[in-house]
């Protein structure tokens, strides 16, 4: 019973991290394309589209981030302590991105004049690179087995910056660019702007190759640094999701290359979430590979009962609320300006 409840909390934690990766990824990806847009008429048009597409869902992503942190320290206090004790530099850098992003949201609409707009765009772009890279790097550092229980067992800088953490960060950058471009295709279609559909379609195809390349690099890093993890990604709990990611990622690129606008967003979400789930489930039952299992990290049972109740209430309240938001949004009840 205790083990089942702790596993449930661990699953909630993994799903929350996945949700942040997907939802945040779309927004960060938009920021990366904003940064890479360069100058000229088309870049201006692309930025205008990104701006529009971002507005209604903006800061909501922090919700996932905060909830995953809270589930971690409540349900798995020892994991939380260990991860922060070893990886605080990575979290600090990721946080810097979160702050810059928040500042940008306030900044971009009071920015007037090309120089200010350039500055605002730069802040948005930097935050969109820094945040996903360093958050994903923490997952890579954990997977590399360099996080000690309670206190660091290797020098902090070594725990933070190693082939695994860096390759996870690169995968995250490619994945956000990938999902950002894919969703911007959808937005361009919704607003009926054919040349922007083509613009982001091309970028989605490029990002697909980027994701495949960094993904392969990541697998090589895992193979050298954490062979056991690779083993359970190939033949273990992580396998279905690893396979799903391998199938869905090129499929998105293929569909967009051929201009077949069906299922591509669902497949994008599927591909990115499969990446995260493949890692998380391949690590099970370990939270820190080889040393700290879910049951060893778990808080006393009453805490997990409480977390299960909180999660249940959350689903009951938030699911219909989100449904309402989507319903109003689809009926264009939430768009103060006409397009």
């Amino acid at each position, binding site marked *: 019973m205790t083990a089942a409840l702790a596993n449930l909390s661990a699953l909630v934690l993994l799903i929350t991290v996945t949700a942040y990766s997907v939802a945040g990824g779309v927004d960060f990806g938009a920021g990366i394309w904003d940064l890479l847009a360069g100058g000229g008429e088309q870049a201006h048009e692309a930025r205008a589209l990104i701006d529009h597409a971002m507005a209604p869902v903006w800061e909501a992503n922090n919700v996932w981030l905060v909830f995953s942190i809270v589930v971690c320290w409540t349900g798995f206090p020892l994991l939380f*302590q260990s991860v922060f004790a070893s990886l605080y530099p990575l979290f600090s850098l990721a946080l810097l991105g979160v702050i810059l992003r928040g500042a940008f949201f306030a900044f971009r609409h009071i920015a007037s004049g090309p120089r200010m707009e350039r500055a605002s765009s730069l802040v948005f772009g930097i935050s969109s690179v820094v945040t996903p890279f360093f958050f994903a790097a923490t997952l890579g550092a954990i997977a590399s087995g360099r996080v000690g229980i309670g206190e660091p067992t290797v020098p902090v800088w070594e725990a933070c910056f190693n082939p695994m953490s860096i390759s996870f960060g690169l995968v995250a950058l490619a994945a956000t660019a990938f999902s950002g471009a894919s969703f911007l295709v959808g937005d361009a279609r919704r607003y009926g702007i054919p040349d922007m559909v083509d613009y982001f379609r091309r970028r989605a195809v490029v990002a697909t190759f980027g994701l495949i390349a960094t993904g392969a690099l990541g697998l090589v890093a895992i193979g050298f640094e954490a062979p056991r993890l690779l083993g359970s990604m190939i033949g273990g709990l992580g396998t279905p999701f690893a396979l799903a990611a391998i199938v869905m990622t090129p499929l998105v690129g293929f569909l967009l290359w051929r201009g077949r606008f069906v299922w591509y967003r669902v497949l994008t979400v599927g591909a990115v979430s499969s990446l995260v789930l493949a890692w998380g489930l391949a690590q099970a039952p370990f939270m820190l590979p080889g040393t700290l299992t879910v049951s060893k990290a778990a808080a006393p049972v009453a805490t997990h009962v409480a977390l299960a109740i909180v999660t249940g209430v*959350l689903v009951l309240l938030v699911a219909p609320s989100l449904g309402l938001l989507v319903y109003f949004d689809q009926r264009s009840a939430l768009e103060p300006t006409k397009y």
Partner: protein
Amino acid sequence: MRLAILLAADALLPSRIQMAFTLAYHILLVPFGVALPFYTLLMEGIGIFRGDPIALRIARRWSVVMAVQFAVGAVTGTILSFEFGILWPKMLGRFGAAFGLGFAIEGIAFFLEAIFIGIYLYGWRRLPPRIHFVMGLVLIPAGLLGAFGVVSSNAWMNTPGGVTLDASGQLGSVDALAALFTKALPYEFWHFVIAIYLTAGFFVASIYAVAWLRGRRDQYQRLAFAVPFTIAALLAPVEVVVGDLSARGLVSDQPTKFAAMEINWKTQSHVPEIIGGLLTGSGEVVLGIVIPSLDSILVGYSPDAVAPGLSSFAPDARPTTIEANITHLAFDLMVGLGTAGAALAAWYFFVLIRRRDLPQSRWFYRGAALAGVGAYVAVESGWVTTEVGRQPWIVYNAMRVSDAVTSAPAAYVWTMLALLVMVYAVIGIIFVTVVLKLRARWRRDDLAELTETPEEGVPYGPRPATLRS
């Protein structure tokens, strides 16, 4: 030389400063995040049910300010949750299973706020008014739920409960309900919630009090002043009573904090109340106004009541002299401002009942103009009282702040602190600039008697269409 010593020491000092700085900053946004939706909805309700376009215009404008501050508060709040891990990993590692429960509940509230603030702000034009109003209503309980969660966690630090510790001091078992509802929760919660409703009310009203002083006397100004001020004025005397109950609760729950608030050195009867004044290292009180036996009377309604004194506790288990003085002066400042707020409220209701109209005295509006900032100072000093008064404990009588701190080098935390101060300053400047720009545009609109939508082109909403149509 000095710098070298600071950088070589452990990270305790910069960690405390960083936590204090980021929390003090975040608390500035809390009254607007939790209580402003109530005032905005009240105004929208007046607008809808009395068919008053002016009230609706006020509500729309307030909702924009609410949204801008929510954007900033979501960031500073996220940073706080990470700071628990970066600065105090050992506290979370040991007590997260109990302390964290309140934050889990706050997580639900954060989700609901994020969704419904979006619907509310974007729905002004296209949603039917009553549906729009009902959507906004969700923000009120969501804000209260969030406040409950955070205060519950803070109350747990003050009066930890619902846990058993094994021989090595590690957490043995948890009783989740007992950990959520600790002894300090009832008075902390009501004291806090009333404080932020009161602060939001006084602060919003103070803007229109300034407008009155500058000669604006139309229906817009009257309504925007009277609605929040009346609510805040109703709450002000209640807060005095609730605050008194809170202080009384501390006598048994956290005697060291109470002794520091009153800078009382010896546990005895006939303890005087000291207003202002400082405690010296040898337990003497210098300066300050001394009212004989009043502290004892406040504690137990009798001069014979025994009040706790600092010297009854081991030096390493009670606030230092400096901390006691900070706690005491912050407490006195909060009580003084609270009393002044209640007096202003009495003035307001006296005029309102006698003349059946708003006050017309310049001095009243000068007071009302100061009440906004005064309420904020009171909130901050109340927070200083409770946090500094708990020292040296991060979890009262269970874990010291120095045992919870990160093992990161001091230089690292100092650097992070310096960066945070700079970035927070920029965010503050941006926030103020946005609000001033909004004000300037609204003023132009009012002069031109335009009724176009004020929420266009602000940070939260999409800017007017720049795409081809």
